[in-house]
């Protein structure tokens, strides 16, 4: 559940928090483009990853970010191992000192780092943007309100779900369920008594919420008004322009082969 910690908004008053969600989206988009479409090797990936850190420090969410990354590390390790084994499989298993071995190793490492870089960028976005502001940004970007609301509600219920998962696990352990018992398949099956109550109660809750919302006239008028509107300030524009400029410069340098792939 740790990986979700990076998705909860942490209320603080820093420049990162005050930035318009749309400006921060520009930043996340830039990192996404650079890490997926522009670069493919380990070294630039490490640099991209490191470039996220100062923003986390500025937003005073570094500790949260680290715990998210720790949560994501497991998955990153999986990505690395599967990539690496896959590549070794293709070239035939070679000795660790040969150049082919390194050729299989480095791109696999890059894949795992790419994953961590993306997690870090998205995590900073969610850590410093309140779900309400995010929804508002989506609406002002002309996404239908229903969709924006669905998204924020999903975010809102992640902590609830995490807490509930803990209670369910406790309840089943109290009836003698041992998660670590048995072989591989049995271990997966051990999770059924935890997943079923979670899913069922989520459906129940969704229905209750829908009823409660409709009884408060949700969707009664086509055009709804909003109490708060987001303003794209000069600082937001500057931040976005800097992000785009740096990204464009990097892409230009890359295309003219000044930078490695």
């Amino acid at each position, binding site marked *: 559940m740790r990986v979700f910690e990076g998705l909860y908004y942490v209320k603080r008053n820093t420049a990162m928090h005050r930035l318009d969600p749309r400006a921060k989206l520009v930043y996340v988009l830039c990192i996404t483009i650079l890490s997926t479409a522009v670069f493919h090797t380990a070294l630039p990936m490490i640099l991209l990853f490191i470039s996220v850190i100062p923003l986390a420090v500025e937003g005073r969410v570094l500790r949260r970010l680290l715990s998210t990354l720790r949560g994501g590390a497991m998955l990153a390790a999986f990505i690395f191992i599967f990539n690496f084994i896959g590549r070794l499989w293709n070239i035939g298993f070679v000795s660790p000192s040969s150049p082919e071995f390194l050729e299989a190793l480095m791109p696999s490492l890059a894949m795992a780092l790419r994953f961590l870089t993306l997690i870090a960028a998205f995590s900073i976005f969610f850590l410093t943007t309140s779900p309400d502001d995010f929804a508002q940004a989506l609406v002002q970007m002309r996404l239908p309100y229903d969709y924006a609301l669905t998204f924020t509600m999903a975010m809102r219920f992640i902590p609830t779900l995490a807490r509930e998962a803990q209670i369910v696990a*406790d309840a089943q*352990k*109290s009836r003698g*369920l041992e998660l670590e018992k048995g072989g591989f398949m049995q271990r997966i099956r051990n999770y059924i008594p935890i997943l079923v109550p979670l899913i069922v*109660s989520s459906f*129940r809750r969704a229905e209750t919420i829908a009823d409660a919302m409709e009884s408060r006239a949700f969707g009664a008028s086509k055009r709804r008004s909003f109490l708060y509107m987001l303003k794209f300030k000069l600082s937001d524009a500057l931040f976005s322009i800097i992000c785009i400029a740096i990204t464009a410069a990097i892409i230009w340098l890359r295309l003219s082969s000044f930078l490695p792939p």
Partner: protein
Amino acid sequence: MIEVQDLWFKYPESDYVLKGISLKVPRRGYVAILGENGAGKTTLVKHFNGLLKPTRGKVLVCGLDTREHSVASLARRVGLVFQNPDHQLFANTVYEEVAFALKNFSFPEKEVKRRVEAILAELELDRYRDRSPFLLSMGERKRVALASVLCYEPDVLVLDEPTTGQDHKQKEKLAEILQRLVDKGKTVVVVTHDVEFVADHIPISIILSRGQIRGQGKTLELLSNEDLLAETFLFPPQLTAILWKLSKLGLHPAPSMEGVVEAMLQARRQGP
């Protein structure tokens, strides 16, 4: 049976939720744990089968230190019935749901069948045997959850808020079942803020407030202590409340429904 020695507990990144709890629940004890919302009742009982381990202090269950034993081995002795049945129901039929714990504890097939049938009959659930537990009413789901723990006959039974969502008849039925367990030599701990239920049925109480024990002893004595109840945000049972009101009017009837009625009739006869 259960011995808690100076238990302190905090969740990560929180203040202490339990602050120096010490208590003993003897074998065959029948004890209520009362307290306001957030007093730490559920946190406390989760220590009884090792789901939570003390930050400081010690919890001994049947002489076993909970820190040194797995939840599964402690759960065999201490059955914990959670507040919300929807947090545990998962099987396709009521039968399978109740059999879950028995299978976990490796009871032989025949014994599983015998015990499940017996407990379903006892809790009037036998007609739902092959139904999905999800289609039952809240009160029935609560009884299925209870059955799924009762079936393996743990030495200690801990129930978290068993009376919520139960009508009067079901509450009385529950009280009967619990009393029968105590008579059979089991230890029963009930966590609740249903003061009436406790006053009517459970002889010994522990009152918890803000993570500390504020009173323990005979239920009726505790529940007639006006200052203690006010401090711990508990509401006295109706009978006690009436007795207090009457005593302010200068009447001191015997502490029972009949006594109160008698005193009121007498007062009416005497006139104002």
